[in-house]
């Protein structure tokens, strides 16, 4: 199971560690040629403006878009969720997300760093709570009818899935709890 981690900027090394622990082989993606032989992809947290900008200038964006449309399973966390969303509210005017999952997100919707928080989340299918770490996190303001909401905080979705795309507002790579990475790998490799 070769799983790419988009390594343009952000917490990509922590995702790679979690993937190794879950039995997958992580590959750092910095250019289009790295995308060629991955079976799934993680877009990490970081700054979405930086990641989208570099995806464009380093020539990753178009190929990535094609592969997602062809069914590449993707997990996007925090900035990764913003990158995959349909529309960004309060972002930069020129910030153009990939539109891979039918959600609209508000950048820094939970506030600046002082409002960053951790909280126990009840996640569908998990027997015990999962510790969610939210850092200048995006707020999901709309989730389309094809989107399954797997966890919420105060009524707002924080963990969404649509077919083989999963997104979280929080950072599963920062806590030593591999359940979300395992769930993603199950989703990605269930049929293949």
């Amino acid at each position, binding site marked *: 199971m070769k799983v790419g981690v988009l390594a343009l*900027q952000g917490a990509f090394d922590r995702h790679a560690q979690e993937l190794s622990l879950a039995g997958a082989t992580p590959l750092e993606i910095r250019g289009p040629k790295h995308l060629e032989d991955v079976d799934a992809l993680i877009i990490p947290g970081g700054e979405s*403006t*930086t990641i989208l900008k*570099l995806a464009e200038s380093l020539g990753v964006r178009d190929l990535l878009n094609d592969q997602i449309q062809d069914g590449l399973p993707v997990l996007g966390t*925090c900035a990764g969720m913003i990158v995959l969303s349909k529309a960004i509210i309060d972002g930069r005017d020129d910030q153009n997300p990939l539109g891979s999952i039918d959600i609209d997100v508000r950048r820094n919707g939970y506030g600046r760093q002082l409002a960053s928080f951790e909280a126990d989340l009840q996640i569908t299918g998990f027997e015990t709570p999962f510790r969610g770490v939210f850092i200048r996190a995006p707020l999901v303001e709309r989730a389309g009818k094809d989107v399954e909401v797997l966890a919420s905080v105060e009524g707002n979705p924080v963990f969404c899935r649509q077919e083989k795309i999963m997104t979280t507002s929080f950072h599963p790579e920062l806590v030593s709890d591999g359940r979300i990475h395992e769930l993603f790998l199950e989703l990605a490799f269930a049929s293949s």
Partner: protein
Amino acid sequence: MNEAVRETGTQLVKRGLAEMLKGGVIMDVVDAEQARIAEDAGAAAVMALERVPSDIRKDGGVARMSDPEMIEGIKSAVTIPVMAKARIGHFAEAQILQSLEVDYIDESEVLTPADETHHIDKWAFEVPFVCGATNLGEALRRISEGACLIRSKGEAGTGNIVEAVRHIRAITGDIRKITQADNAELFDWAKKLQSPLPLIQEISETGRLPVPIFCAGGIATPADASLVMQLGAESVFVGSGIFKSEDPAQRAQAIVEATTNFADAEKLAKVSRGLGEAMPGLEIENLETRLSDRGW
């Protein structure tokens, strides 16, 4: 359904933002326009300050926290995190910066120190702190005071990478030696580095600093960024190097791309082309003031 209880200001949350800044470039900016240029170029965060280090060096006098109005202006100009500097030991400046809701405070040797014995007690704050260090002992003392991110100091405002290299090598070199030490030797390392034993023991187990390590002070070119990233830095701070160069927007973008592709010489050659003049550099031995000597 039970509602989640939100805990703010935890170590995980404070160190977490540093994790999100990895592989990125944090740029010094003095006004909203520069902040927008930095964000356009792909900066992961900006550092709001009144004068870049090379001007502080030139102007002399006491360098202090920036005007809150200027910090607010930069905050409203960009969507990326905004950091600001407080003087070493000046906890009142830090309290003001926290009330302004900056995303990170840099307790910085670039400003004139306010206390020659004590650094700020950073555990007392909800906002995270970054501090400079020239060696591992200094880094661990800052972490024990509550810093959530360490940057090697270098010599700010010189455009000369030699001190940054010295400091990042000093830190990563001692980390490598500690991973080879036996238990009895760890006590001696704690004594030698004037650092808490539990942090030394943690390094011997993990082989890394307990918080991310970034590099600052003297980075002026894409190759400089690549050099320090290859030496173990996880991100770079660029101060005077961008806005004191001939073409700041282009240089900023080149340094961002170089930081992502720090190990790819072909990419580095491509982004280094035609950037115009870099900032004028200074020889370290001719400096009147060495900013990196500040901090204890």
